[in-house]
């Protein structure tokens, strides 16, 4: 049993481990990073820190997110990231992590750690480092 953050991504309810998250913010302005991979939406300032903004939808290989402002802030390997998602719901108690019975489909299976039951629903538990690394990381 652990806490999970429930959010909507590409129309689905998914979960992230809450202890990996720092905060939930609304991203105001994103400065693009020309030449970077498509899932890198750009940079944003949060107090004195520079966050690397990751478009979670693009990281799934589903094309860029539109008009998304909600983001989850987390530190991966010492670098602060903001993960753009459709909407953030809440932090809830999640059940045990279970392996996936079937493939979650292209894009999703790369970032899925397993599935977890929260608020009576079964949803994918996503792997934050995999989301941040983006689709190219696996090919390389």
């Amino acid at each position, binding site marked *: 049993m652990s806490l999970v953050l429930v959010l909507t991504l590409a129309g689905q309810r998914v979960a992230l481990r809450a202890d990996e998250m720092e905060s939930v913010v609304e991203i105001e302005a994103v400065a693009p990073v020309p030449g970077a991979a498509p899932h890198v939406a750009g*940079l944003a300032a949060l107090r004195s820190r520079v966050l690397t903004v990751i478009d979670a939808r693009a990281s799934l290989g589903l094309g860029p997110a539109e008009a998304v402002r909600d983001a989850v802030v987390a530190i991966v390997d010492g670098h602060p*990231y903001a993960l753009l998602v459709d909407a953030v719901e809440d932090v809830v108690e999640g059940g045990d992590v279970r392996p996936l019975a079937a493939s979650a489909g292209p894009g999703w299976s790369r970032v899925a750690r397993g599935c977890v039951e929260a608020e009576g629903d079964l949803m994918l538990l996503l792997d934050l480092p995999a989301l941040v690394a983006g689709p190219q990381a696996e090919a390389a």
Partner: protein
Amino acid sequence: MDDLLTEFIAETREMLGALGGAIVAWEGAPGDRARLDEIFRFVHTVKGNSGFFDLPRITALSHAAEDALAAVRSGARQADHNLVSAVLAAIDRLGELVQAIETGDSVASADDEALIEALSRAEPAPPPELEAASSVVAAPRVAARSIRLPVDLLDRMMSGVSDLVLARNALARRLRDGGADAEVAACFERVSGSIADLRDAITRTRMQRIDNLFAALPRMVRDIGTETGKKVALEVDGGDVELDREMIEMIRDPLTHIVRNAIDHGIEGADERRRAGKPDQGRLHVCARQTGNQILIEVADDGRGLDGGRLVEKALAAGLLDEARAARLTPQQRNALIFEPGLSTAREVTNLSGRGVGMDVVRANVERIGGVVEVDSREGEGVTFTLRVPLTLTIIPALTVRACGQAFAIPRSAIEEIVRVNGGAVRIEPLGRAAVATVRDRRMPLVDFPGLIGLPAATDADGRMLVVLKPAGGGLYALAVDAVQDHEELVVKPAAPAVMAAGLYAGTTLADDGQPVLLLDPPGIAARAGISLARKETVVEDATAPERTATPFLLFRTVGGAKRMVEAGAAQRIEDLRADAVRATAGRLRVAIGDAILPLEGCAEAPPEERFRALRLTDGAGEIAYAVREVIDMVAFAGEAIPAPAPGEVRGVALVAGEQVEILDLHWLFGRHAAPAAGDRRPICLLAADDPFAATILRPLVETAGYEVRFEGDGADVAIVSEDAAPPPAARILRLTSAAGVASEGSIDRYDRAALLAALAEARKRA
């Protein structure tokens, strides 16, 4: 992990770091009781401490080492080479074990026994003299003047103060816009001032003495010496120089590599040294010093020197050069080939170096942190590698530019000059899909930044700016951007891997307005634009058009308010001085700086303020302090100066960034203070008046050599002319080649400084 254990690890590691030098010194002088005691105390302390934590392996090892050392202390054993090596191995293992506790790794326990065995393998010592052994060894306890802090706390302080700076900037904008009353403004000034002080102080907390880096050298030199069978004496200077702790980590590997190379390849074996008339023991001199906002680290050996010919052969074989170009290389350029990938000169591959991954990696690593590495070699006398690195990685002076409607920062250390495309000094020619820019006489590849990142430029081609970049040690190129914004001091943070993967950026930062800004990586951009080969092209171009080489100047405002500049090479440092240290003595103003009394120039009387700043200038022998109101900037100046009509403090006027700036006449200044020897007539040297090389480059050299320079007239003691010119009336004629690297019979290579100075000295003797 509990606090006590953390403390134990930190303390042990600290003692280990301090001990490396002691062990080597002890081996050199086994009779040195103080060193022996120091090492003994260490193992004794570790043994004692480890007992508290149930660390049986550490206890066993330190116990064995303690026994062996105790035997030496009592005279029962000799400190021979085997014993020292065994103690070293045991101490190394202790270090590994301590490290393993921290990281949670495991270290194979199998060879602990072997180490303990090696320690106890005693050769019977000569009959011990009976002597009362000192019984109690206690480490001297001194009241702590320093405390240990976790590094991430310092980082948090730094980021807190960065926050504060940003908030201050935002507030400053509000106040400006809102027209705040004087009281609020004064109050804000005070806050602003203390924030600046705070930021300085916190930056200082991140500084470490370079000793931290040098402490490992004695041990390393000993180990490599043992491995290669060479004897090497190490001298270390300047350990008190401070730089950012991150920077220390960044230069650790390059420095290690250079030292390894010097011992492995530079210093000869004892036989070869004897044949060359050198002492058996090689000498390695490592020194650090601060010049301006750079740290300079020199590693000099007294070995055989680089084999320039062999480097050229290898470069030819590797296809890095063609014959024609190889023939034109100056000796310096040949030596610099050592930094090319795949060119290791080692004839045999040893397990230390010589695998062809070497100096090119060193250069790449040093350049990545905004530094430069240079090599100087004298055949048969040794090689000197010089590393120049910035003081800190975290705060760098940068230029912000706009491209594609976005701001980017460029490290100022890489910028040569900034020119407007339609300014007249620039010509741009398309070459297929690439383009070449000619800025005055220098031709260089042009990188269209918006095009490179695949975005449309916001400005039409004519209104754009070219930033001429010289990535450390690399070739020149011009980067076209939409506009140049501002000079700023930026707090740079490493960028996330996903951003670095683009290969164009060196980090991220926040501009004064709080917006994130990407710091461009000049070498990365060059590589991405496919102009990495430019390095070799410009090496040759440099040689054919060297008159344009930019000299770094220090730009400052005098006490009187005038803008002046001086060759940065002459300015050793900037001193903060008290006005009451200035006295008019023996007819001159003089100022006391530390233990020295220097002549004070730049003002007619002691400055009115309580404190003032002065440049400390040197001509290599003497020093002068030059009072200034403020130091403005470093500029690279390549243009020509309009000479002053009469000799004096100012030798001419130059145009820098559109403003007239006076250039100090160092020669005149030092001339005022050098005591003229009685009846000493300076010999006269005649130079060609119409040759810019003679007038701007040769002249200072000739004057330094003790000559008075004239451009016409009879009665000169010596004349320097190019090899094809008609001989002017002079007692002696020196001929120079018209281009570097093509010395012919009877003439001196125009950049062979040593030969030129030697010829001048020779002529002076006869004059």
